């Protein structure tokens, strides 16, 4: 039951990720997807194996790692902004090939 909004949230994340051009917006979409997954973990844990704690802990760690990742991503974005004055992903393709 709780999976449905999580699922919609995930799809919103997907939509945002592939349509937005601002890197921060993309990051936000990413967070949405991550959260949707986290919820799924917790829900499955709670409903199917209530005695186990794996899902919960997984979520816990995912949150921690997501935090770290976001911090780093933002650091990169800021740095990029400093050098390129722009955070539009479509213009940042110099690293290809």
């Amino acid at each position: 039951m709780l999976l449905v909004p999580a699922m919609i949230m995930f799809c919103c994340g997907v939509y945002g990720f592939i349509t937005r051009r601002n890197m921060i917006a993309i990051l936000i979409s990413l967070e949405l997807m991550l959260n949707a997954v986290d919820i799924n973990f917790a829900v499955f844990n709670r409903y199917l194996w209530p005695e186990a704690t794996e899902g919960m802990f997984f979520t816990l760690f995912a949150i921690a790692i997501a935090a770290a990742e976001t911090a780093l991503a933002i650091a990169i974005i800021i740095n990029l902004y400093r050098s390129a004055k722009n955070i539009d992903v479509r213009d940042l393709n110099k690293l290809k090939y």
Partner: protein
Amino acid sequence: MESVGSIILYIVVALAMVVFSVLAVTTRKILRAATYLLFTLFAAACVYFMLDYEFLGAVQIAVYAGGIVVLFVFSILLTSRPGHNSERLSSKSRVLGSVAALAMLLISGYALVSRCALYAAKPALDTPTMQQVGQSMMSTGHGGYLLPFEAVSVLLLACIIGGVVIARKR
């Protein structure tokens, strides 16, 4: 079936979640998007509370709502130029994106509907206490998470250093 209160709660939370996440990815103003994200995150925290994972919900609020969103806001303020904080999306990419998202929704929704009992009752559970959580974190063996814990702490350290190095002014 559950109590009416919990159903109402569920509806409220689910609606908030769906609405705010949709708004977060569709709004043009990036600062607003961050705000909607914050609400979504709160809704997610509510879900954790509803699942009796209080600690998880607390962490969600503290780390996400309290930490990450603040980071977002700061970075948005740092990177957006005045009057330039809106972006125009071409309709083509919007259509394509929504098609992809709907397809995704369709497939996972089908999987969900066909496989899961949507209205399953929540089994009874003793809410894991802080003590239990702490012990699990610090123990090894079955149900112990010392190794991931340490790994995450190393990761965080690395992130701190990395963040400092990357964002440092040259």
